[in-house]
């Protein structure tokens, strides 16, 4: 076996000079066919190879190492009709092209990095990906980026838990199965594993990538259900100042018997950012502040955040530093008020916007700070290296009645990666990653985690119609310095992927991989009693594992309709779920392993661009079937049907947008199950927005939950009622 590997390596090495001599360069510009202006970020791929590049801001591109001969070049970009061109490439020669794209096609999905740790067109990814571009994010006037991620197909927020394809249920944000990346750097909280969306610099987000399915083969623990990667904007070439002012108010509740406040409740926020070049250094700096009265009693929130990004780019090196700090101080009612727990002149069984007397002053303060430094070096030839160092602190304190809880979690991380393209048909990624987490908390105790991993991935352009991806990652976790030999906390996660190009407009993708997630400190060690909930530790908790796969096809059916259909599954072993017991002491919760569980489903997404690109929209439907195999029951907090639909009408500077989200009622929840007071209802949310652009200045209005539809995703917590928001975005 070792001899074979050696022969392969030598053969590969020997082939390189010959390949260089028999290849050429394809370069040129991508232009808008109607205006002649440059088209940036257009993806250009040499069909049948792994050669891929993206046009820069001036539309220029360059592909090196293109095998000599007659080659096909695939060009695509959001908002333009894709094109396939034939190019004659001479050995050692340069082919200069000028490519015009017609700007009237359906959106195709953009660029994604998180799927393979390499910039790819979404259509070339071996797994399902949803990309939310900057315009889509701003359209919804979000308070945090989570408000926009909630609109991605197959995504549902269940309380604080982001749930991709039903992989997560609800656990108050603890032990999420979605890895949260900020510019590709892990950013889940060190203690709970939860996602702190407020650390994202909202005005400087370039796009959000939602990668579905188990991503453990590249990212290890936490990526069991999927990955959300927030990509921040590069510092601008010219000085730019952005201001976003946002204000709004809540409507009355849908039923007058639920009114609890005598005055109108509102919210407002202000964000300011400035970016410029300082010699060779690109920089942006931003700060934001917001206040929200909340729509329910003790639901107020105050938020501060600031962020900085520095970028130093040379011919071979790119150094980037990102830092952010965020604070939130908010009322934290756990459940609404039941009869007898608060003043209720209407004597209802429950008052969904009031809280019990003893929770009226419950509050949480949380501080989050992070910094990461990344360095990319392009070595001579087709080799580049990537290194990063990161530090994140999560420091929070909650007051529940007379009980005070808090935790400080510090997480140090590092990664070293090599990207090597030894030939036009092979792209290799290999590296190692490590993290050390230290937690001091009165509800967990003092603990530390050490995570070590090695990973490798090969992308092979085998034929003009088939690209294969194969990779694996080995992970080891030590809890409190626990032994390396403990097989419970180590895992090898392989993944295979394939993309077949059946014709110019049809792609079939398939992937099969292993997922792995080690329990967080919060799942292992939480011991507390708050608000009638008693959480019991379980230090015998094992990591959860799964096999996950999908088979999907996407096709541009007509110039105005793009369709993607995928079937997927997760087969879980030792799935970690909160088990709830109603005892005489109240409600006891303990995280336990379910021996076998399953989530499977089908997802269909259609994107359209109609009436000369004046009307854009998408419709996405997901069917989910989940099962705890030991009981035969559905998994808790998973809907069977998810649907999102959106349409945007564009007329000159005016945009009118409509979003609709639906999730069927959960078949099962875990804590409160009285059908009289805890009815399970579907989620139906209709949002209507209006925007007017004048140059770089935009004014927006949106009505969220326009139907004022009352629903819960977790028991005894009403989701936000109808609210009206206006925003002013200024750029100068």
């Amino acid at each position, binding site marked *: 076996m070792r001899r074979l590997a050696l022969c392969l390596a030598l053969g590969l090495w020997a082939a390189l000079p010959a390949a260089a001599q028999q290849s050429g360069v394809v370069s040129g510009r991508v232009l808008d066919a109607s205006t002649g202006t440059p088209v940036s970020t257009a993806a250009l791929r040499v069909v049948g190879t792994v050669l891929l590049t993206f046009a820069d801001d001036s539309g220029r591109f360059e592909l090196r190492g293109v095998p000599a001969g007659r080659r*096909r*070049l695939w060009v695509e970009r959001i908002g333009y*009709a*894709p*094109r*396939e*061109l*034939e*190019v*004659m*490439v001479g050995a*050692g020669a*340069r*082919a200069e*092209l*000028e*490519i015009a794209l017609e700007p009237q*096609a359906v959106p195709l999905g953009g660029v994604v990095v998180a799927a393979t740790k390499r910039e790819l067109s979404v259509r070339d990814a071996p797994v399902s990906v949803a990309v939310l571009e900057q315009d889509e994010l701003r359209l919804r006037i979000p308070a945090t980026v989570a408000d926009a991620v909630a609109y991605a197909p197959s995504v549902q927020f269940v309380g604080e838990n982001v749930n991709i394809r039903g992989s997560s249920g609800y656990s108050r944000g603890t032990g999420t199965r979605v890895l949260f990346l900020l510019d590709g750097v892990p950013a889940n909280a060190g203690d709970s594993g939860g996602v702190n969306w407020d650390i994202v610099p909202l005005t400087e987000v370039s796009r959000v990538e939602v990668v579905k399915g188990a991503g453990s083969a590249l990212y290890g623990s936490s990526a069991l259900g999927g990955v959300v990667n927030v990509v921040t904007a590069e510092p601008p070439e010219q000085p730019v100042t952005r201001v976003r002012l946002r204000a709004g108010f809540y409507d009355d509740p*849908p*039923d007058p*018997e*639920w009114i609890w406040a005598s005055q109108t409740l509102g919210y407002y926020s202000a964000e300011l950012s400035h970016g410029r070049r300082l010699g060779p250094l690109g920089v942006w700096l931003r700060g934001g502040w917001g206040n929200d009265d909340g729509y329910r009693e003790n639901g107020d929130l105050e938020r501060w955040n600031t962020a900085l990004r520095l970028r130093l780019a040379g011919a071979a090196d790119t150094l980037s530093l990102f830092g952010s700090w965020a604070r939130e101080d908010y009322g934290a009612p756990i459940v609404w008020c*039941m*009869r*007898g*727990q608060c003043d209720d002149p*209407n*004597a*209802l*069984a*429950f008052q*969904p916007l009031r809280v019990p007397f003893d929770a009226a002053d419950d509050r949480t303060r949380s501080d989050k700070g992070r910094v990461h430094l990344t360095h990319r070096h392009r070595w001579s030839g087709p080799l580049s290296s990537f290194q990063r160092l990161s530090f994140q602190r999560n420091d929070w304190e909650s007051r529940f009645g007379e009980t005070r809880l808090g935790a400080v979690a510090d997480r140090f991380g590092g990664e070293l990666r090599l990207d090597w393209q030894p030939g036009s048909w092979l792209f290799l990624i290999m590296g190692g990653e490590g993290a050390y987490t230290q937690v001091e908390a009165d509800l967990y105790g003092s603990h530390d985690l050490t995570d070590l991993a090695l990973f490798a991935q090969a992308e092979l352009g085998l034929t003009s119609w088939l690209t294969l991806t194969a990779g694996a990652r080995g992970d080891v976790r030590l809890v409190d310095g626990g032994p390396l030999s403990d097989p419970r906390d180590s895992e090898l996660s392989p993944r295979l992927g394939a993309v077949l190009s059946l*014709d*110019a407009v049809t792609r079939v993708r398939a992937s099969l991989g292993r997922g792995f997630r080690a329990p967080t400190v919060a799942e292992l060690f939480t011991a507390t009693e708050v608000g009638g909930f008693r959480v019991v530790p379980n230090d015998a908790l094992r990591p959860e594992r799964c096999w996950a796969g999908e088979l999907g096809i996407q096709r*541009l059916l*007509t*110039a*105005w*309709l793009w369709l993607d259909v995928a079937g997927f599954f997760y087969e879980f072993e030792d799935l970690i779920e909160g088990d709830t017991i109603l005892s*005489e*002491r109240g409600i006891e919760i303990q995280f336990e392993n379910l021996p076998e569980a399953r989530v499977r489903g089908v997802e269909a997404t*259609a994107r*359209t661009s*109609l009436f000369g690109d004046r009307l854009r929209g998408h*419709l996405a439907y997901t069917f989910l079937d989940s099962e705890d195999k030991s009981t035969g029951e559905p998994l808790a907090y998973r809907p069977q049907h998810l649907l999102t*639909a959106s*349409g945007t009408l564009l007329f000159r500077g005016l945009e009118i947008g409509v979003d*609709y989200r*639906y999730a069927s009622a959960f078949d099962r929840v875990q804590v409160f199950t*009285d059908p*009289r*007071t805890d009815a399970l*209802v*579907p989620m*139906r949310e*209709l949002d209507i927005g209006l925007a007017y652009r004048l140059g770089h200045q935009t004014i927006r209005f949106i009505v969220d939950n326009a*139907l004022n*539809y*009352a629903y819960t995703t977790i028991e005894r917590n*009403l989701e936000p009622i109808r609210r009206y928001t206006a925003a002013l975005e200024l750029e100068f």
Partner: protein
Amino acid sequence: MHSSFSAAPVSSDFKPVRNRNLQLGFLLALALCAACADALDPVPFQGVSGILTYLSEPDSASTDWIRVLAYRDLPQGELDLLAFEPPSDTLPRQGLSAPYVVALEPEEYAWLVVVWKERGNDNLLEALRAAGWYTASGDAFSAPASFRVAADSESAGINVIADFENMLTIAEVLEVLP
């Protein structure tokens, strides 16, 4: 070496197609998705409520909790005592009176009792005491009075006296009850 090549579109280059019927059909499918129903609505309380009057304050240090329990039938043995309806929230350990509510199904109930639990003792047969029950004569331990809960309504005024200095053990309760 530098040379220029023209790029010729291949035959699979995509040609836009327009079909207004299909476009309108697609829009109609989107509009159908906006139907709305099934929202949460106000639910009238259904159960019993009243005031607990404490003849004396319970001993806070030894009290784990105090709750009100309702029974459809008078218990005849220890096992029957476990057949209670979902109890009230825990009630104050201090003060001399407290309002209470118990959500109940619409039926006739034979016994509504104030139960005290000793702190640190998880053997319920030993740890539980009856501090008083709903009686027709307005005292703590005379003959239990029954009451009815009507559908979608609150049976108010079911007031109970709790005597924490003379609480009854389970065995004593079973002796006293008819």
